């Protein structure tokens, strides 16, 4: 039942006995046909009951109140959220500037579906705990499907199946929301808007550098100036962990992930002094040189040398202000085969994104090829941009046209590329314009600048000029 918002007014209204019909001017109830013809008994009874319903305090009669649906009851599942117009607009602008920069680097946008068969997706899930995937039974096939928790496996599938007749390398970009049961953080976001790329078919340092440059260009296009690429290599710690007794490997990996040298010492008890050393190593090139000097010849040392070469190549390409090193990076090191990196900037207190090289991924989809890529977390990136002072661009003019009966004025503005909407009620126009972010109100032949209240004669030209500025 729809309960009118003015129920209290009804409660304070005339006593039922004073009323021959429900509150005049308001139709609360559908009358039975008989009621319209005057005071038949049925109609009279109906009138009395209707008025009683509209005016009585249910508690007095012990009748269960029929509650109006409260606005707050329309909750979302935890971690899900809406974007309202201003925020959605900012988010779209951000995503466009990122994908625009990636397109300039030759990355073509692909749009994978929001869910796929779990068996396909899960072939390519490297770093994500299996428990984080939201699965359901797809009614059509009876198969288990999964909401995409990551787009990389989807891109791998697209390349291995849909694009198999095209020559490598593949440069593909994506933009979309992935869904996870929880993320690493206490706040447990489940809906993660991402932009990223995959570069498939370019091995080693040239591919690594290309992807790092694309990521840097995307961040700069979004307006971020202060950021750090923290570079590591999965091949540094992996051989050392694999040399430990199997019972210690999981704990040692977790300790290294937390850079917990004291715990590593306690766990491995001198089994691997190099692991503790990695956990204590700082992030500069000099720190890396010291570790290289201390490392035994072998694949771990080779990976350190590979990291040093990448660091130097990146610095030669303008990364020197934006780079640090982390020889102890082990996040998802069973998945990454070389470079692992994360991007940090002041503000969000967590990485804005990251990526790395996963040369074994494409093989899992039957098309073995080297692959490297990255993904940016738009939520974290938005926080970083905000804390860096935000992209305080001049507001785009948005015009509310009052009482524009023919719609000609709004049409003229739109034709000039200016946002224009009509508003029929002059009395509420300004308040409406303020709360919906309009910059100007057109009232008759006057153009009012909402911020200053200044009124000038209406013309399209000054609005156009501002848009160009």
């Amino acid at each position, binding site marked *: 039942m729809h309960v009118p918002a003015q129920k209290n007014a009804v409660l304070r209204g005339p006593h039922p006995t004073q009323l021959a019909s429900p509150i005049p001017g308001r139709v609360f109830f559908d009358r039975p046909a008989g009621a319209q013809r005057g005071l038949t008994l049925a109609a009279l009874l109906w009138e009395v009951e209707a008025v009683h319903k509209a005016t009585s305090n249910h508690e007095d009669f012990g009748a269960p109140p029929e509650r109006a649906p409260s606005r707050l009851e329309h909750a979302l599942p935890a971690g899900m959220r809406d974007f309202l117009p201003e925020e959605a607009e900012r988010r779209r602008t951000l995503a466009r500037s990122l994908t625009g920069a990636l397109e300039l680097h030759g990355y073509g946008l692909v749009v994978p579906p929001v869910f796929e068969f779990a068996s396909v997706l899960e072939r390519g899930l490297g770093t994500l705990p299996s428990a984080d995937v939201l699965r359901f039974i797809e009614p059509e096939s009876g198969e288990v499907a999964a909401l995409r928790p990551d787009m990389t496996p989807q891109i791998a599938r697209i390349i291995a199946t849909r694009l198999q007749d095209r020559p490598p390398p593949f440069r593909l970009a994506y933009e979309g929301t992935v869904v996870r049961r929880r993320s690493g953080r*206490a706040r447990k976001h489940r809906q993660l808007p991402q932009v990223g790329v995959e570069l498939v078919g370019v091995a080693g340092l040239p591919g690594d550098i290309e992807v790092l440059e694309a990521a840097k260009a995307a961040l700069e296009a979004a307006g971020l100036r202060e950021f750090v690429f923290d570079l590591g290599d999965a091949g540094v710690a992996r051989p050392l962990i694999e040399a430990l007794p199997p019972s210690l490997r999981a704990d040692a990996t977790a300790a290294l992930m*937390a*850079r917990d040298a*004291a715990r590593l010492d306690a766990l491995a008890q001198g089994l691997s002094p190099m692991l503790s050393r990695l956990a204590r190593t700082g992030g500069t090139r000099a720190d890396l040189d010291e570790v290289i000097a201390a490392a035994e010849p072998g694949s771990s040392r080779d990976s350190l040398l590979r990291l040093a070469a990448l660091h130097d190549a990146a610095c030669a390409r303008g990364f020197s202000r934006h780079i640090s090193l*982390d020889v102890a990076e082990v996040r998802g090191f069973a998945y990454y085969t070389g470079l692992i990196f994360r991007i940090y900037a002041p503000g*969000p*207190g967590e990485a804005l994104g990251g990526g790395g090289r996963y040369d074994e991924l494409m093989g899992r989809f039957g098309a073995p090829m080297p692959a490297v890529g990255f993904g940016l977390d738009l939520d974290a990136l938005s926080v970083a941009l905000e804390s860096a002072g935000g992209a305080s661009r001049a507001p785009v003019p948005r015009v509310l046209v009052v009482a524009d009966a023919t719609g000609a004025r709004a049409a003229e503005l739109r034709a000039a590329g200016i946002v224009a909407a009509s508003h029929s009620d002059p009395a509420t126009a300004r308040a409406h314009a303020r709360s919906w972010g309009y910059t100007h109100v057109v009232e008759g032949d006057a153009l009012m600048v909402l911020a200053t209240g200044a009124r000038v004669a209406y013309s399209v030209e000054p609005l156009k000029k501002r848009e160009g500025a």
Partner: protein
Amino acid sequence: MSDKPLVVAVPKGRILKPLSKLLGALGIEASALLADDRTLVRRAGGLEFLLLKPDDVPTYVEYGAADLGICGRDVLRERECDVLVPLDLRIGRCRTVVAAPVARTARSGVPRVATKYPRTAAAHFAAKGVQAEIIYVQGSVELAPLVGLAEMIVDLVETGETLVQNGLEIIEVVAEVSTVLVANRASYKLLAADVAPLIERLRAAIGP
């Protein structure tokens, strides 16, 4: 980026005394930490300290509301927060243990375990292949076996005096606990110029 002081989350309570002593050894005048007032943000020695409930320290650090934090390994293990642990401060040493009444009768089936550390306790028993019913309580854990709420407890023990006084004894040690320095991942990288020297000074003060 060094214009703002590093923010350090510290737990209110008895760890503040050895902590301010440790900072004193670095030449950081931190007696403000011990001042008997109700301010929750205190500046000392060029650092900004947030005085928090011990359980909240890793949360503040994980979100980046604090760059660094001081916290016990017991809290860290229980909260499963994604923070770095660059240094063990070697203060506040104690143990997480399983304890039961001295006078207990052997029982089969699913033991009931009262604890302030439900995740830690559940993981401990699961790793041993024991199915246990974990009962979360907020304090006075030692009481639980005395009144039949549980057969065992998992709790933090420093001297073991409380256990003895309540007729309990340690059955096994779950983990050694000490106080550690934790760091926000982003701060650790972005503020390395401030964070790394501080860690090195602390490491030197603690000794090998």
